């Protein structure tokens, strides 16, 4: 949905980048919104993600609302899935979009599309919350880990059990196609919030082996999903 973020330029101070939005980008969003630059919901819905981000940089609250409407459910769903706590998921979802609001000027299109940037913020916030909870209550951690293990034990393949909970068939099918040990590494990292060191300890495998499994898993996912992944990114929800 979002295209190249070509509407801004970066002013290069020694070692420090500062985003400066330029008029062209503002005009692009404004052109789609009509001469009045009105912010009707139906107009905003037509804008690409990066155009909404342009408007967010200009502190247009309606644009953030539109971006939230586009991705809010997905971020919340991911948070619930990982944290298994609706209250905490609400908090991190709100924090994610608050961070989008505050950090919009630092978005770098060269590193990925707006959706990738937004989910990266969201996932990091979710994982931070998960790890904070683990530090706060180690016994709870053990319980969480046990839950993960129990869930895994209910199936002949632990990671596949978690994968089967997913409703999105493309992703589900791609994950199911991975070798079990690769899928396990991805699931424990992305949905389990474990660091690669923790995964290595859990699986009693060398750290290098775990890193390799993750690398090969993403490579294989790319092969399996290819254009589908791109479509998921571009189609939004």
């Amino acid at each position: 949905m979002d295209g190249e973020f070509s509407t801004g330029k970066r002013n290069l101070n020694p070692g420090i980048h500062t985003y400066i939005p330029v008029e062209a980008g503002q005009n692009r969003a404004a052109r789609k919104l009509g001469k009045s630059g009105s912010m009707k919901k139906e107009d905003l819905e037509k804008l690409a993600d990066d155009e909404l981000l342009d408007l967010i940089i200009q502190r247009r609250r309606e644009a953030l609302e539109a971006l939230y409407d586009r991705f809010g459910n997905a971020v919340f769903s991911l948070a619930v899935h990982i944290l298994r706590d609706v209250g905490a998921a609400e908090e991190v979802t709100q924090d994610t979009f608050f961070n989008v609001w505050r950090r919009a000027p630092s978005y770098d299109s060269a590193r990925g599309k707006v959706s990738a940037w937004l989910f990266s913020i969201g996932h990091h916030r979710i994982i931070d919350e998960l790890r904070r909870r683990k530090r706060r209550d180690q016994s709870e951690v053990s319980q969480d880990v046990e839950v993960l293990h129990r869930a895994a034990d209910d199936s002949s393949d632990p990671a596949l059990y978690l994968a089967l909970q997913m409703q999105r068939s493309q992703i589900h099918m791609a994950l199911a196609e991975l070798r079990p040990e690769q899928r396990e590494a991805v699931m424990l990292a992305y949905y389990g919030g474990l660091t690669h060191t923790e995964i290595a300890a859990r699986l009693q495998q060398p750290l290098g082996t775990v890193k390799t499994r993750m690398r090969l898993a993403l490579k294989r996912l790319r092969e399996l999903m290819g254009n589908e992944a791109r479509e998921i990114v571009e189609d939004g929800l």
Partner: protein
Amino acid sequence: MDCKEVEEGLASYLLGAMESLDNSKMNFHIDGCAACKAMVRRESELIVALSKGAPEIKAPARIKSQLMEKIGAEAEPYSEPEPAAGIRTRIVHIGRWTAAQSGAIAAAVAVVFLVYGVYWYSGRMDTIDDLKAALDAQITSAALDEAELQQKLRIQRDLTAMVASPDVSIAKLTGTSVAANSRGILAISATGTSAIISASNLPLLPAGRIYRIWLMRDGNEFEAGSFSVDEAGFGQAIVDLTDPLTAYSSIKITIERTEGSPSAIGESVMRGDL
């Protein structure tokens, strides 16, 4: 960190499985490397797909209403010091840790001698298996301590290498009259949103006190984290910011209560221009 290391660590990085320091090192490199940025961009599509793989649940409407309310408050033009929202600080107590670990190893050795002492003086041969188990546990503990020490030393070397990177800019901090001999540097990433602060010759603080970092902008103070120092007066912290450091005019470090301070009310020990 070079491009090859980024490529090898990219999966862990994108899956959120990296330790925080390694994550910062990746960010430092990627921010200044067009080739690695392109690689991240390409692979990040898969991560978006994974993000959308969770069973969809409709978010309660209150999240959005509270968000918009919060943003309304945020739009106020910096009338008072910001809370630490969006600023995450990871504290690295390398020096203090070293001392603590040395103590732990010494304690482990002492326990070993104690265990043997008990054995020799009690003459209770029937406890030999228990004693052996205790000895093995202490040896294992000491070995783990040593491994952790090696890990910390490696982190210190990596930090040094990071500071020496050409993509990093440096700001100097000088001591105030309270700590005239103290010195510090702020190593700032290419994007300006990550920084490592290293301070030396600062006084060791009593219990309940901590050094707190403040960024100054338009006459307002923004808390950016805190750190403590070891017996040699050395302390470090890694700071992640939502706004680049160019958005701030100066930095200062004050002595505050450990439980937190709404503003910089303690004595200022160091400052620097940004």
